[in-house]
Structures are given as C-alpha cells and as structure tokens.
C-alpha cells in the first residue's frame, strides 16, 4: 500500500460540534436534541437504520439545513453566521447525489475545488496549480487526468470527487455514503484513500450504510436512531449484538476480525414477529395488478 504525503498547506484547524441540535422538515423533527463533538484527526462514522436522521445530520453539519433550534458550531461559532465562502475553506462535503456537468474531465473537476480560495481578480496562482497536481497524485489519478468522468469506473469516479475535496484543502471532510453504489474492490479503494487523508491530519466524518465497513474503518463510531445518538465510541467497545438488535431489529452473532480486531457481523436473521408482516404484504401486491 502506497503512502502519500498530502498537501495540507493550510494549517487551518477546525473544530466541529453540535449543541442541542434540532433539524427537521415541515412539522417533522428528524434530528432531536443532538450533542455531538467530532474528534479531530480521526475518522468518525455515523450509522443507523433508514430514516434515523444520519444524512440530515450530515447536511446540517455542512450548513445545508438550518437548525430549528440549537446550533452547529464551527470553531466555536454558529456555522450559519459565517460567510459560506469561509466555511468552504474549512469544510468540504461530498454528497450522495453529487453530479457534475456533462463531459467534465478529472482535471476540470479538481480545479473546481480551488474555487473557495479564488476570487474574481485572483483566478489562478501557482499555489492552485500545485495543490491540484498533488490532489491528482494523492487520489492516484495522474494517468486519468484528462479522462471524462462518465467514462470512468465507479471507484475511480468517487476518487475523483474526493480529489476535488482534497484540492479544496479543508481540514474537515464530510462524506455521505461514499461507497453505497460501489462494488467491493472499489469500496476498498475509497476507504483506503480516506485512511490516508486522516493519516495526513484531516478530520473525516462519514455516513455509512454498511455496518461492517463502519466497524472496520471508523476510529469513532456514532450510532443513531430516531434522531438521537444511541451510543458513540470506538467500534470494538460500542458494537454489540444488543446494539444491532436495537438499531436494525435483527439478531446476529459478532466475531472478531483476525486482521484488525474490529467486530464482524455474521449470522443475521430477522426477529420473529417481522417475518409474518412481510409475507402478508407480498401477497396483497400480487393480487392487485395481475392483468
């Protein structure tokens, strides 16, 4: 495995935390009174069942949603009160549905990452050039620099998006399910890159679907349910079969990974009362629309 030294040129530091955060849509509260402190220089992974509010929380941390009550604090200040440009120099988000203009190449994509540091009168500098080239090296995309994004594989594409976030040169990086659409091999690519980033000093917050990957790559795991934190801490202390039963309603057996010592989830079975409900629903659908 290669080791990269990354261009953390800005020695800007950033702390991110929430205080009594309430986020919601309309009448519905999705995040309820959350207090979270993101540890610096580590990979924090947020997990939980569908609808627990983890994506909403990430969006709130990235100032995409306004809090109903409470605050998200970046370096101690409410994130909504800071100019969005300044926030963009401290925090980069890679959302789940990221899309780019048609036909864009990797180089062009990465260049966009420099935007928060540029201005109308100061459109390019050698520093920008330097950072873009380093980002390309860090994401191992030098040979693909002029390829169109759409012609690349899923894993390469995700690496390109992360390269753009690297070029944005922020101490904080937020990723929303970066690996959900990727196969195993590509998933590992992305996770390894994320690991390099934290080794170089960045703070990464990820929302992950897959609990096993979360256990493997997280330094700090945050388990959510119904908008609240159920428990947080290092995966091997926090993840128990009781927790999994509470979050997902399935029973399982936990083993210890021989290589890393993190929990591995096996022998998953739905809990008894759920099985009956599912069968009934399938029968109804089949009846309705037969031609």
């Amino acid at each position, binding site marked *: 495995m290669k080791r990269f030294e990354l261009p953390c040129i800005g020695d800007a530091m950033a702390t991110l935390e929430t205080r009594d955060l309430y986020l919601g849509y309309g009448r519905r509260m999705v995040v309820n009174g959350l207090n979270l402190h993101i540890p610096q220089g580590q990979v924090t992974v947020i997990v939980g069942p569908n609808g627990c509010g983890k994506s909403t929380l990430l969006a709130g941390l990235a100032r995409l949603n306004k809090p109903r009550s409470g605050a998200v604090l970046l370096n101690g200040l409410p994130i909504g009160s800071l100019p969005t440009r300044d926030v963009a120099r401290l925090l980069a988000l890679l959302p789940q549905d990221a899309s780019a203009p048609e036909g864009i190449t990797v180089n062009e994509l990465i260049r966009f990452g420099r935007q928060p540091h540029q201005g109308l009168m100061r459109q390019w500098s050698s520093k920008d050039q330097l950072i873009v080239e380093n980002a390309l090296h860090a994401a191992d995309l030098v040979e693909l620099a002029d390829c169109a994004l759409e012609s690349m594989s899923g894993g390469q594409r995700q690496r390109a998006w992360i390269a753009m976030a690297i070029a944005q040169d922020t101490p904080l990086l937020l990723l929303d399910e970066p690996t959900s659409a990727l196969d195993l091999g590509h998933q590992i690519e992305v996770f390894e890159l994320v690991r390099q980033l934290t080794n170089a000093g960045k703070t990464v917050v990820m929302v992950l679907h897959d609990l096993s990957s979360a256990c493997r790559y997280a330094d700090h795991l945050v388990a959510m349910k119904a908008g609240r934190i159920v428990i947080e801490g290092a995966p091997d202390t926090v993840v128990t079969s009781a927790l999994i039963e509470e979050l997902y309603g399935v029973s399982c057996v936990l083993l210890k990974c021989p290589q890393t010592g993190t929990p591995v989830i096996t022998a998953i079975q739905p809990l008894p009362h759920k099985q009956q409900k599912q069968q009934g629903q399938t029968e109804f659908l089949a009846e309705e*629309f*037969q*031609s």
Partner: protein
Amino acid sequence: MPERSRHLAPMLSVAGVGLVLLCLISLLIGAGDVGAWRSLETLFGQGDEQSRFVIYGLRWPRTELAVVVGIALGAAGVLLQSVTRNTLAEPGLLGVSAGSSFAVVMAISLGASASSLAFSVAVVGALIGCLLVMAVCRLRGVGSDPVRLILAGAAFSGFLSALSGLLLLRDQRTADEMRFWVIGSLAGRPVETLYAALPGLTCGLILMLPLVRPLAALALGEALASSLGHHPQRVRLGVLIVVAMLVGTANAAAGPIGFLGLIVPFMARRMVGSDIRQTLWLSLLLGPSVLLGADIVSRLLVSPYELPIGVVTAFIGAPVLIATVRAQRLPIL
C-alpha cells in the same frame, strides 16, 4: 379494493348533477335578448317564435357542442397525463393542439374548405404532435425531468405557430378565415360541426376502453408493467392515438381551447385520487362541466360582449398549473 369504488360513485353523481345544472344555466342565459325567466318558460313549451329560436337554435347547439368538446378534452387530458406520468402534461402545452391547428391552416391554405376534411386533417396533425410526445417519452428514463417534456412541447408549438404564421402571411384569404378560428370559441359554429365531431369522439372513446387497465398498470413503471404481462410501448401508442383523435376532433370543432386538459385531471385527482381507473370516468363528466362553466363565465363577464373561451380557460388553468407545481412534490402518477 371495494373502498375505492365506493368513493367513485358519490363523486360521479355529484359531477353528473353539476353537469345537468350547468346545462340548464347555459340554456337560460346568454345573448339574444331572452332573459332567464322567458327561457324557462320556453323550455316548458310556452315561448314565442323568437325565444324558441334562441333557445333551440342557438343555445342548445352551443351547449351540446360544449359537452362534446368538454368530454373529448377532459378525457384526453387525463389520458395524456397518465401516459406521460406527468401532472403538468396538457395537450395544448405539449404541442398536440398546435399540431392540429397547423394541419388545419395548411389544409385551408392548400384550398380545402369542407368542414369534414378539416376534422380528419386536425386529427392527423394532432397525431404528429403526439408522436413528438412519444419520442420524448421514450428517451426519458424513469423519474427524470418532468419539465423537459413541457419545454419540448412549448418549443414545438412555437415552431408550428411560426410556420402557420408564414403560411398566413402569404395567403390573405386563409388569414381572414383563420383569424377567428385560431381563437378557440364555442360561439358561431355551424350545427354541422356538432354532427361531424361525433364520429371522432365516439371512435376515440371506444378505443379508449380496452386501454384503461393497462394504463393503470403502466403507472407502476414500465419494467413492472411488462412483468405483469402488458406491452408498455403498444399501450402508449394506443393511448396517444386516442388522444390525437379526441384533441383533433375538439380542435376542429371549436378551435384550440387550452388548459382544459390540465384543469380536469387536477380536479378529478382532488376528488378521487390518482388512479386512472377512477379519474377517467369522472373526467367524462367534469370536462363538459368545466367547459360549460367557462362558457357561461365568458358570456356573463363582459355582457353583452363575449370573452373568447380560451381566455377564460387560460385564466383558470394557469393558476391551476402554478398551484400544482407549488405543492411540495409533484403528485406521482
């Protein structure tokens, strides 16, 4: 499921009663110096020559025409929205009406003037508009941009009306004939128009019947509908032919009347939900009701003059369009 049919029946009766009432009002009021009271007397058999002419010679054919055109446009609206799975779809907005108008202009400028020829020409023109819709639908993936269709239709309409404009520039005779036809109106149409419109309407409605069930399945998405044994492309083609028939007939009979195909499905959905198996039957009653209502308004508002009915429907329909899109999510069809 039994609950849904129970919902439909009361709504149908409400709509039916509404329609009858509106027909009555349409007969009672209007230009021609025959007031409401006298009209009522005439309907019961006690009127003089003039009143009887106004009621039976003018208002009755007009009301009938409104009903025929209303049924055609209302049903076409529901069908079009269902086949494009787009609650913003409307024959006028998508260029179907523009297609039939252009075909009529071209036919008249090429020398045709028999009214029955205008009908078949209008249907063919509407069909071309529908084919464009089909082409765009086929290219769209599931759940992609609903506005793309509307924009394509707007562009297509613009193109066709420019072509019509070009034809009219060259040919003064056609221009004079078209000047009044081009604005949709129920007034001053010869009685033959009604009879000429009936074949197109009945044909369209009959062809529509076997397509309803497949169309409901299509609402689940193409892949799912195929797996249930339907043929999505054939169903779409069939429905679009029906829409072309209905819209072409309505256009040839009364000129292009826009927005009805938007208002009627909107109301029907409000009343019985999104299932086409219910909204379609309701639209057959709501269509004529809305059109008659608009016609009555157009007669009353600036009495003794008349507003073109296209203006009234646009002023009802545009807010409906805006309201539809203001809702948090576009209702999924």
